[in-house]
């Protein structure tokens, strides 16, 4: 690794962190938005560069990962940043989504956040992104907990800033705070037990020491606490209760950021701990009994989430419940520990972030122009806002997984992996979920295109800068659906690294 790329790992977190700290000082007026745009853009550039670099190196000498010792203290005694393909891919995704949503939200924030709070909004915004990026690239178990709390605390504040539009944002944020803190505390207990067992906090080192020691009650308890905590954070059914209220009441920009990144980072934590820390030598990370339990949760998430989505009164809630179902797909793919299923799971993380981020941005445009996302008020939307409703339909098709959209590619790999690893029932659930996704997408189509338009006035025109990120995100999902070669390559290599037990 040459000297130009050697400081890049730490820059991924450092750039948004500096931005977040500077925002309260210089972030008045338009400057907060500019600062956020520049820092998230720079972070995207840095993580994208690292992704290309690691992917190129990994094809030469697999498995390849970058290790960066903070303060020059070598691991396992010092804290190291460890970036492999999965980390780099998701870091690019998170910072890229941060950039897109920031691009979207100049006017949205003007609309929904009072002027004197805006610089603090941008500060929290950038610190949340810092925390999420930090979780992705650190190689230290306790760092994961601290960064998780940094991102969670800032996200509670961001959700609560929706109180101007809907006072339920406060109770939603408080519920999320209580559940999120309990989840994070479970993770803290798990890390403590692992430390008691192995005497180290470096994830690679914990893994190495666990392989030598027999599996005993301490390790199993740690794993149970960890899975419960992570499941709370990624909103896996039945621990998803905080999510719909939080997504539907938060400011629209925050909802888009959360839906696209926060739960994905929760899933990343799950993957990292299950496969890079707890994985047993030369075998599956989870036993059949574990897969059964998690599979039941995922199946319930897919069925319940999709059915609930079909009977929600507003588009925001519909999208939130559909996220519950999509989390089910992603987790079911990672659980079985088969290479194709894992590839599908990683692909679905990326594609779902693009599609659901784009859809929540569409909901943001609806709030901006109509002041509501209640489905009853959207009658005839196809004539009144052809572009936005067209975008929502395209996103919906992506969620169903119509061939030609990105959703098809990831579901294809999920199905292949689930069947090849001998779990046809789970594969059937994925198929049923797609049919149910068609139901709730059709519900929108029926209201928007087959009902006569209402003539409530639109408050604003369609600003190009708001629609541009929607176009880019949904366009990317279509492009990746048609030309999936490169991203499948990256996801496949990332899955291989993860299943190979390399932390």
């Amino acid at each position: 690794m040459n000297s130009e790329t050697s400081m890049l790992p730490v820059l991924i977190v450092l750039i948004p962190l500096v931005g977040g700290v500077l925002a309260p000082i210089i972030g008045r007026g338009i400057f907060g938005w500019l600062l956020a745009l520049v820092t998230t853009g720079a972070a995207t550039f840095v993580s994208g560069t690292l992704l290309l670099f690691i992917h190129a190196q990994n094809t030469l000498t697999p498995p390849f990962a970058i290790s960066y010792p903070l303060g020059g203290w070598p691991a396992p005694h010092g804290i190291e940043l460890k970036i492999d393909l999965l980390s780099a891919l998701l870091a690019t995704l998170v910072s890229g989504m941060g950039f897109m949503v920031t691009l979207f939200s100049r006017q949205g924030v003007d609309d929904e956040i009072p002027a004197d709070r805006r610089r603090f909004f941008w500060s929290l915004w950038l610190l949340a992104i810092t925390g999420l990026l930090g979780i992705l690239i650190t190689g230290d178990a306790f760092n994961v907990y601290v960064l998780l709390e940094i991102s969670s605390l800032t996200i509670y504040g961001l959700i609560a800033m929706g109180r101007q539009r809907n006072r339920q944002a406060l109770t939603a944020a408080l519920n999320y705070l209580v559940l999120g803190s309990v989840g994070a505390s479970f993770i803290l207990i798990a890390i403590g037990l692992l430390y008691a067992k192995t005497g180290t906090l470096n994830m690679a080192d914990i893994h190495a020491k666990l392989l030598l020691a027999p599996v005993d009650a301490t390790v199993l308890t740690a794993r149970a606490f960890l899975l419960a905590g992570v499941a709370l954070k990624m909103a896996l059914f039945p621990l998803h209760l905080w999510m719909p209220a939080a997504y539907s009441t938060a400011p629209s920009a925050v909802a888009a950021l959360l839906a696209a990144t926060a739960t994905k980072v929760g899933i990343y934590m799950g993957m990292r701990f299950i496969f890079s820390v707890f994985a047993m030598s030369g075998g599956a990370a989870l036993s059949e009994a574990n897969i059964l339990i998690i599979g039941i949760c995922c199946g319930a998430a897919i069925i319940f989430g999709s059915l609930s989505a079909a009977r929600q009164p507003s588009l925001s809630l519909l999208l939130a419940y559909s996220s519950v179902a999509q989390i089910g797909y992603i987790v079911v793919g990672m659980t079985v520990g088969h290479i194709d299923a894992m590839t599908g799971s990683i692909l679905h993380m990326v594609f779902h972030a693009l599609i659901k981020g784009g859809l929540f941005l569409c909901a943001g445009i609806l709030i901006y122009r109509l002041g509501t996302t209640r489905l009853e008020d959207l009658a005839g939307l196809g004539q009144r806002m052809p572009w936005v409703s067209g975008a929502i339909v395209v996103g919906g098709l992506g969620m169903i997984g119509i061939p030609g959209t990105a959703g098809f590619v990831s579901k294809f790999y999920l199905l292949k992996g689930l069947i090849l690893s001998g779990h046809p029932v789970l594969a059937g659930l994925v198929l049923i979920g797609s049919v149910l996704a068609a139901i709730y997408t059709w519900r929108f189509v029926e209201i928007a295109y087959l009902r006569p338009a209402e003539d409530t006035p639109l408050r604003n025109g369609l600003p190009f800068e708001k629609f541009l990120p929607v176009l880019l995100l949904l366009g990317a999902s279509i492009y990746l659906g048609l030309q999936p070669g490169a991203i499948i390559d990256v996801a496949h290599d990332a899955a291989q690294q993860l299943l190979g037990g390399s932390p």
Partner: protein
Amino acid sequence: MSLFETFNSIAFVVIMMLGLYTLIARQNLVKKTLGLGLFQTGIFLMYITLGVRDDGVAPILQEGAPLTYTNPLPHVLILTAIVVSLSTMAVALALIIGVREEYGTIEADEIATIDRADAEEGA
């Protein structure tokens, strides 16, 4: 395992469960927050117990000091966790102040009733 560790191991579970019970059973949001704090305090006690050695002293290098010392790392970790817990409290209290301003109450069941009434009005 020394008597101290046994006692602590029982104590931290009791404290955690007291906190969790308060968190679930109380309707008052401030009491819920206190329960959360108690729950986290139990975890701190667990970490600190991890570092304890019988007859251990503070790990500062001095002439003639005994070689048995307590493990400082859990203490450092828990210092961070205490700060996190303090911040969680602060955020929770700030949110509760907002809830009180908007709803005029901090009882979770009354807030749920108000929200339901709002939803029916809007429908």
